[in-house]
């Protein structure tokens, strides 16, 4: 009975995770933002031609896309879903939602592995541990198992199992994880690979040395999927190496082979990132270390002190950068970000709740305490994982950043689960605790869902470039009847939406695309086929019958308005569609 109960509970959790990730997946978020559209069309292009949108054959290290040189992982993962579901929002977001559910599932065995060998636990596998005395109220029986009754059926769950189930449940309903599981975010797929890599590494240390090979491949897949993983994997590997140093020394030959394979497979990416301008540009664009302001400040202060030797020490630019980095690092643990407001970017959070629930504040603090108080064997690994996660994102200008720091999950959920489990053990009024915690969490959760499904799409549809799909739908029936279509660039990267929603044949696109690359290596498409994308649509010459898709109120003189496209709450006009004939 205890074993099957665990199984059924896990099934229920996975079911909840799947419903929360797949329900209205195509319509909330309200539309595809440009990176999602780009991922989708590149995957479609691979499916149709084995080439990316620019005609490059099966890219291995990057997809040029808008000149942001996207990692290839998510695009290749989207190819099968587009093949099955067609080129639409659901198919493009499917891999993220699917691997989001798998991450929830993976959290269960990972947490179990991290906790069952701890000195503070009694494992279910310990002989005789099932021989427990009868009980009548919820609580922990003499064998240290969580014990309770439902309709005269007696259940018992071992500590690691209960905590693992709670961790999986907390991740299933986590606003942070849900946000990224419901959009085509490479980061979410990257998270799955890093969690899998860590789990397999623990299996390598605990079960069999050969697990190191799939673990290596998982970490590599993560690095080929999301750029943030490239700054996370080396640090987490360091933590894993310190934690499992004995097992590594014992299996040094297997480790050496895995390292050689990893080096071989990583080399193309390493070469791209370190030896090409394209590979370095995007990092240089976001990092604080390329910001010249600290150098200016340093020079200003030193000048004021007549460039004295002591001024050179006190106002050294490295100190300015260190300060900046330290501030950005601690930003990751900003309580406002974690518990009340979330990420400031409306695409990365719904703005009304934190990345975690309020109750997590108490549970995480309790979890950290009990992790140390019960002298958990792998406490260093769990806390190390938590502390190293912001090291990479802290190098960026915008902090705290929920997307770049997503690999911190599910450490918060594991800590919350440990906290809840032990608080439950020590409090006197267990029923009261359960009812209070449950009601508090449920209200928080329902509030989050309400804000996510009702308010967020209405308030922030512009952040998801709402309106492009509706514009394409308006244009498509007229496509054969017009000579040219002029589209404003004011809302950014329009070409990708016309390629995507018209399911434009990639080979035809390559023939007619007018593509330019600027000095920052950003790629601009100024037209293809009948389309012209322009900053100033009214200045383009009219040829025959011309359709316009422009910002509201900006139709050229003499153009006849055909339709206005509004945002979801019908309060703001996004596009005016009009026509003019010469």
């Amino acid at each position: 009975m205890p074993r099957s109960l665990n199984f059924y509970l896990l099934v229920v959790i996975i079911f909840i995770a799947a419903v929360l990730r797949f329900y209205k997946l195509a319509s909330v978020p309200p539309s595809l933002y440009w990176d999602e559209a780009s991922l989708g069309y590149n995957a479609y292009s691979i499916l149709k031609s084995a080439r990316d949108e620019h005609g490059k054959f099966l890219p291995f290290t990057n997809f040029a896309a808008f000149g942001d040189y996207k990692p290839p992982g998510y695009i290749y993962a989207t190819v099968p879903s587009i093949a099955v579901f067609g080129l639409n929002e659901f198919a493009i977001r499917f891999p993220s939602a699917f691997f989001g559910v798998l991450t929830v599932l993976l959290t269960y065995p990972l947490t179990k592995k991290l906790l069952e060998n701890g000195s503070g636990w009694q494992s279910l596998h310990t002989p005789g541990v099932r021989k427990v005395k009868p009980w009548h109220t919820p609580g922990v029986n003499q064998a240290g198992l969580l014990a309770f009754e439902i309709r005269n059926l007696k259940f018992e769950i071992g500590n690691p199992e209960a905590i693992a189930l709670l961790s999986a449940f907390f991740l299933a309903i986590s606003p942070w994880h849900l946000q990224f599981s419901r959009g085509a975010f490479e980061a979410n797929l990257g998270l799955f690979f890093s969690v899998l890599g860590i789990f397999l590494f623990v299996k390598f240390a605990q079960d069999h040395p050969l697990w190191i090979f799939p673990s290596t491949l998982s970490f590599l897949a993560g690095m080929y999927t999301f750029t943030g993983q490239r700054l996370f994997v080396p640090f987490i590997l360091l933590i894993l190496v310190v934690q499992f140093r004995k097992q590594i020394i014992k299996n040094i030959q297997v480790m050496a082979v895995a390292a050689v394979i990893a080096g071989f497979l990583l080399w193309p990416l390493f070469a791209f990132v370190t030896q090409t301008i394209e590979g370095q540009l995007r990092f240089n664009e976001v990092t604080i270390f390329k910001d010249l302001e600290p150098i200016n400040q340093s020079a200003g202060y030193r000048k004021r002190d007549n460039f004295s030797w002591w001024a050179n020490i006190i106002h050294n630019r490295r100190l300015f950068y260190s300060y900046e980095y330290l501030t950005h690092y601690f930003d990751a643990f900003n309580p406002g970000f974690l518990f009340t407001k979330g990420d400031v970017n409306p695409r990365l959070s719904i703005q009304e709740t934190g990345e975690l629930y309020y109750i997590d504040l108490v549970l995480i603090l309790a979890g950290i305490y009990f992790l140390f108080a019960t002298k958990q064997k792998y406490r260093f690994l769990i806390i190390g994982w938590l502390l190293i996660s912001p090291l990479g994102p802290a190098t960026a200008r915008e902090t705290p950043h929920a997307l770049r720091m997503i690999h911190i999950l599910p450490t918060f959920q594991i800590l919350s689960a440990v906290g809840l489990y032990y608080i439950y053990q020590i409090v006197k009024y267990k029923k009261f605790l359960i009812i209070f915690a449950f009601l508090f969490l449920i209200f928080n959760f329902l509030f989050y869902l309400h804000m996510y499904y009702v308010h967020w799409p209405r308030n922030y549809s512009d952040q998801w470039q709402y309106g492009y799909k509706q514009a394409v739908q308006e244009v498509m029936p007229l496509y054969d009847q017009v000579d040219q279509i002029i589209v404003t660039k004011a809302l950014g990267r329009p070409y990708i939406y016309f390629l995507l929603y018209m399911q434009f044949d990639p080979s035809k696109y390559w023939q007619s695309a007018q593509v330019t690359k600027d000095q920052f290596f950003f790629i601009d498409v100024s037209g293809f086929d009948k389309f012209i994308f322009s900053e100033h649509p009214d200045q383009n010459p009219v040829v025959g019958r011309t359709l316009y898709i422009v910002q509201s109120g900006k139709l050229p003189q003499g153009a006849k308005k055909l339709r206005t496209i509004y945002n979801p709450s019908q309060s703001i006009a996004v596009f005016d569609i009009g026509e003019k004939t010469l």
Partner: protein
Amino acid sequence: MKPSNKFRIFFIIILVVLFGFRIWQTTGCKQFSSFYFNPLSIKVSVESNVNTDFGMDRNISRFFHNKATVGIFEFSKNFASAFQPKLLMVILGPVGLILATAAFLKVFEKRRYLPKFHFAVILTTSLIAISTLNSKISFFLLAIFWYSFSLWGIDFFLKTKLAKIVFVLLAFLSLCYFIFDWQMKLICDEIFFN
């Protein structure tokens, strides 16, 4: 006197001087930044959220957006702002922030009631800070209790010789930081010395 106690006293003196310097800097502050939580924001938020719920049953909308729930959410947002790491960095400097983190771990130690009480005082002070209009008093209350709380973390730097050296370096770094960050933008809306 034990050598570790000598170092403890030495470190406390350094910190008192360092934090005293920061407090002295704030005497130039003519207008302190406010943490004040305006209860009017609750009413505004309720109205705005209910309006966004057009087409929805009013009772459901009111279940989520009423004075009680919005009050808790808005209040906690303000309360959390008193714990922003950026703000604590400006008040405590790098050394103080690391000390406060180390002190925070002491709150969880068994049978150590004074750090727990001290942290409870900080929570109360933050509560006062968001409830009072006098931003100057709010700041000084917060600063003094954070400074005293961070002293609990000194043990962290007494363990090894390397840790002691790191402490001195961090203290020096903090002094440099305090000197160049004399405008203290997160603390002072307006600063000038006569």
